[in-house]
């Protein structure tokens, strides 16, 4: 597309009819207050904490609904809380803006958030410090809402870092286990690497456009060089890779499963990790001006989804499977964004939130039932014992597999279509579009396969474990059912009834897409899902010996997959260890030896000079006379006469 067209469209997409004065802050404030109350009151009465937190989340959801319904088409609400800080040419308002994109995000965050809060009441019922847990969980909701409500990059960044902190706290919630705490730290630090890129992007934007307000920025965009846009876009993408666990910064997410399972569902599946996708959607007008960056996004996303899917194939920890699946699905969302179909990315974000939250909660239910056993080899046959969990899990599996009419199908189908047509808007993608689409289809097959595998291993067959599993309490089942329902019909509703594309077209570029297909066609289009599911069912219910044989077929490959492509080890070996050794060397070598050495050395030299000169003090009268006389003669001759 022509530069001017793109710029025009960007300006158009940020041209809202804004309504001032809506108390948007209350949406975020409720969970913050909830967080405080959950801790203070929960400290006295542990059981109240969960209900308080859930109430806060639900109230917040109510607020969001209120604004959602009040939001006029093509309009936006704005809430300028106060001028945050200003100095020189930098002025930042604490600004909330509620437009269609935010509305979708808020609904997901508070809606699913409320469900997961409710679920957690049951899940955490026995934990000693659950008041702390709910405090953190509500705090997370607060941060996430700041992130999506933020009307400028910095408020977004506040939320961005805030969710990072909550993630850190929640991953390390059981901090007595040092490896859990370490996982939290790792998450935070890897995120920080991304944040550094994000910060640089903010600086670049501020320097070149003089504003970080999304609307103003959209209006001012244009005129700068493509290189600059590419640089900014790439910096933003670095930030996104950190938060949304893309290569090369995805390593923290699997470790993050150390946290309680509801946390994994809420933070590491449904909401926080999608923040990167949200960021790309938010800053779409910058990305469309940087075609090269879009290709990079696509490439990284494709690679991530493939690698993660491959790893997921052989994991035995139920949560690890889901974690890698999340990484892979996030890759799908970025694929959509990279292809220029931002609304599709958001679409997949939403559907993914439905089914992945359901899956995680389901796995949580299983883990809860099996007394914190996470290894699928120790499960099996749970379908009979916990039918609700099994049913919802299966529905979500089909959804993620992309089988029509389950939710996942619609968003996935759009993604592959968008890839195929990406060349239309981005000439650099012309050559690769088909190729990307093909690989994405393969990943879709893999996804269907490994998810079905996990469902089979967990719920089918006979129980292999040693504890006495039981169905979870109602507070846990209810959210499962709701989410499963959404995973079932959510995609269809958003595609046909509610028309997400139409809803978002005032804020995101929505390209005309083919008319809606019939049900049969959609079934036909879900062949990758059928293929994956079918294959997995075959292998894990009928030919149960085959998987082990396959696994042993090419040991290096399976080992490579099982060991997650050695990402952690490589990072450790190439970056972390050398850097630590370097630091240590810097301290001992540079700091103590050279720098401090030269300081102390100077002192020592002066001291030694004193010692040397002291030799002249012989105490002998004759020497003194001689020295004095010689010096006198010397001075007289050298200075006075010469």
């Amino acid at each position, binding site marked *: 597309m022509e530069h001017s067209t793109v710029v025009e469209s960007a300006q158009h997409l940020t041209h809202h009819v804004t309504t001032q004065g809506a108390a948007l802050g209350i949406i975020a404030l409720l969970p913050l207050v909830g967080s405080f109350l959950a801790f203070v009151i929960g400290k006295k009465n542990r059981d109240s904490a969960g209900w308080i937190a859930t109430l806060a989340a639900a109230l917040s959801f109510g607020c969001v609904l209120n604004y959602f319904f009040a939001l006029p088409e093509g309009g936006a609400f704005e809430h300028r809380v106060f001028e945050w800080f200003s100095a020189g040419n930098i002025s930042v308002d604490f600004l909330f803006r509620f437009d269609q994109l935010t509305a979708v995000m808020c609904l997901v965050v508070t809606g699913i958030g409320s469900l997961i809060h409710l679920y957690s009441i049951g899940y955490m019922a026995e934990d000693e410090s659950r008041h702390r847990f709910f405090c953190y969980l509500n705090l997370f909701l607060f941060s996430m809402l700041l992130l999506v409500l933020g009307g400028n990059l*910095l408020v977004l960044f*506040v939320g961005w870092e805030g969710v990072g902190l909550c993630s850190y706290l929640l991953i390390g919630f059981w901090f*007595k286990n040092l490896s859990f705490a370490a996982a939290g730290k790792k998450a935070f630090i890897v995120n920080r690497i991304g944040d*550094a890129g994000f910060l640089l992007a903010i600086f670049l934007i501020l320097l070149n456009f003089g504003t970080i307000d999304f609307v103003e920025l959209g209006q001012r965009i244009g005129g700068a060089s493509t290189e600059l846009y590419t640089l900014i876009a790439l910096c933003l993408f670095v930030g996104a890779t950190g938060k949304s666990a893309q290569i090369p910064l995805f390593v923290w997410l699997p470790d993050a499963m150390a946290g309680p399972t509801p946390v994994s569902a809420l933070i590491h599946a449904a909401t926080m990790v999608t923040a990167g996708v949200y960021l790309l959607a938010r800053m779409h007008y910058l990305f469309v001006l940087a075609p090269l960056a879009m290709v990079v996004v696509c490439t990284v996303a494709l690679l991530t989804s493939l690698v993660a899917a491959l790893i997921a194939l052989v994991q035995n920890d139920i949560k690890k499977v889901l974690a890698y699946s999340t990484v892979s699905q996030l890759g799908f969302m970025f694929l959509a964004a990279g292809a220029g179909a931002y609304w599709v990315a958001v679409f997949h974000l939403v559907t993914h939130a439905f089914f992945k939250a359901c899956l995680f909660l389901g796995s949580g239910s299983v883990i809860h039932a099996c007394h914190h056993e996470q290894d699928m080899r120790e499960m099996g046959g749970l379908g009979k014992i916990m039918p609700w969990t099994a049913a919802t899990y299966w529905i979500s599996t089909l959804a993620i597999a992309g089988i029509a009419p389950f939710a996942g199908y619609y968003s996935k189908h759009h993604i592959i279509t968008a890839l195929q047509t990406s060349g239309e808007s981005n000439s650099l993608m012309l050559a690769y579009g088909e190729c990307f689409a093909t690989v994405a289809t393969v990943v879709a097959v893999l996804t269907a396969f490994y998810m079905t595998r996990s469902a089979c291993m967990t719920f089918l067959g006979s129980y292999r474990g040693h504890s006495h599993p039981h169905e979870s309490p109602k507070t846990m089942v209810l959210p499962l059912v709701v989410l499963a329902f959404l995973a079932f019909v959510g995609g269809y509703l958003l595609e046909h009834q509610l028309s997400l594309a139409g809803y978002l077209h005032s804020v995101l570029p929505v390209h005309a897409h083919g008319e809606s297909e019939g049900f049969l066609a959609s079934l036909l289009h879900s062949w990758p899902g059928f293929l994956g599911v079918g294959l997995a069912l075959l292998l894990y219910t009928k030919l149960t010996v085959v998987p082990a044989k396959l696994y042993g077929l090419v040991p290096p490959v399976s080992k490579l997959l099982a060991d997650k492509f050695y990402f952690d080890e490589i990072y450790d070996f190439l970056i972390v260890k050398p850097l630590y050794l370097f630091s240590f060397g810097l*301290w001992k070598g540079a700091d103590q030896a050279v720098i401090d050495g030269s300081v102390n050395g100077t002192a020592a030299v002066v001291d030694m000079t004193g010692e040397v000169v002291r030799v002249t003090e012989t105490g002998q009268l004759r020497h003194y006379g001689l020295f004095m006389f010689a010096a006198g003669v010397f001075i007289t001759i050298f200075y006075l006469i010469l």
Partner: protein
Amino acid sequence: MEGLPLLSTIIFLPLLGAVMLYLLPVCKPASDSDGEVSRYTALIFSLMTFVLSVILLVAFVPEQTDMQFRESASWIPSFGIHYQLGVDGISILLVLLTTFLMPIIILASRSVKDGVRAYLFHMLALETAMLGTLLATDVFLFYIFWELMLAPMYFIIGIWGGKRRIYATLKFVLYTVFGSLLMLVAIFYSVNAYAALHGEYTFDLAKLQEGLVLSRNVQIWLFAAFALAFGIKVPLFPFHTWLPDAHVEAPTGGSVVLAGVLLKMGLYGFIRFAYPLFPLGAQVFGPYLALLAVIGIVYGALVAWAQSDIKKLVAYSSVSHLGYCVLGFVAFNVASTTGSLYQMLNHGISTGALFLLVGVLYDRKHTRLIADYGGLAAKVPVFAFLFLVFTLSSIALPLTNGFIGEFLILSGSFQTFPILTAVAVIGVILGAIYMLGLYMKTMYGELDESKNGDLTDVNSRELLVFTPLFALVFVMGIMPGPFLRVMTPTVESYVQNVQAKMVTVAQEELDYDFNPAEFSPDTVLSKRRGEASPLAQVRFEGGLQ
């Protein structure tokens, strides 16, 4: 308030308190064996000082960009030296920081068992010196207070310090003296150059700023002398090695005051003296200072990571944080300079609090090694919570104070030094690595019952110490407006003035060159012969035509 010399009162009230400690009979060791009365006396005086400085802040007019509450009295007329004070948007918040931290330090002095009275005496004397340094607008007076800061700190580290205290304190004093004495020479040179041009000696900063005309080469030398003195104090890489030693050996209060206020004096010196007096020198040195600052940021963070001693870690983190402050200032635009000033306050609060926290641990277990702790969060949750909050403030998490400063600094300096700032951003990552690493190793994991099973959580007195700091972390992070508004008008006009000088003087480009031959007496003779005309007229004015 008319008629009351508010600034003088603020400066000397602590000293009065210090003297009272020895004069009041109730403070005598005989009647006050555990030093409790002395502590209260000192606390009252430091609180009074704080109240006065709050009054000062209230009465302060932010829009007025020049010195306020001026006081001036002739002191050494033959050299044009005045006892001259004033406060502006740059110094006022640092004054408040000083007066705010001192009561906290005194409250936290419970860990000092022997010689409480002397300890408090030195602390209060130190407060006087620091306040004087911040409020003096006469270069000579500034220098006196600047040097005066050394003696109390020397005793605080030397008497109440750790094992290697003698080494640390001597190093601290000698290193600092070494730098500041060279600055003294530069002061002489400037004053003489001024006298040569205007026929009168003056140490009045405003007059010097206005009337001092020096060539680029001379300014480079003079700026270098100032920069050395201030750079050592900051401390700028590679002049920082005294700091870890001093911090590790100093008692808790000493560390707090060292990190909280003393280090800021170096940067304050840059802001108040080095830049306005020698804008051309500053122009030349600016990028190099920025480079050193950025090296300091990354280097300090890396070395902090390698530490096994908590205090040393925090000390090196100070090197890193002060690097941000310096970077922000030398980038020299309004945003970055404001950020730099703001970050000085933040660093005072968060690092001060971290040292206090380490002090809490040290008081109980008498070790500062990270390896001796672990899993404390379960045993001392309140402590862990406070530690977390200040850690987050230290790594500049948004909505804590550190973020505002760091963002302003980085985004501001990005406009001047994009590449360097990009490198400095690495410090953001490294900061998380070493601080969270420290937090994890001390607070998380299994508690070693045999070692730390008897650890008690912060008591109410300690809580009282931390509460104001805790509150400020968030107040300054969420509502920085009131703080920034106090300083921005001054900073704006300050940056404008100095930048204007950099431009205009650079255009006039004097032809007088710095001549090393001037170091030898050869030239003096010839000048002496040039009849009664003051020698400097030849040296300084000659270049102006």
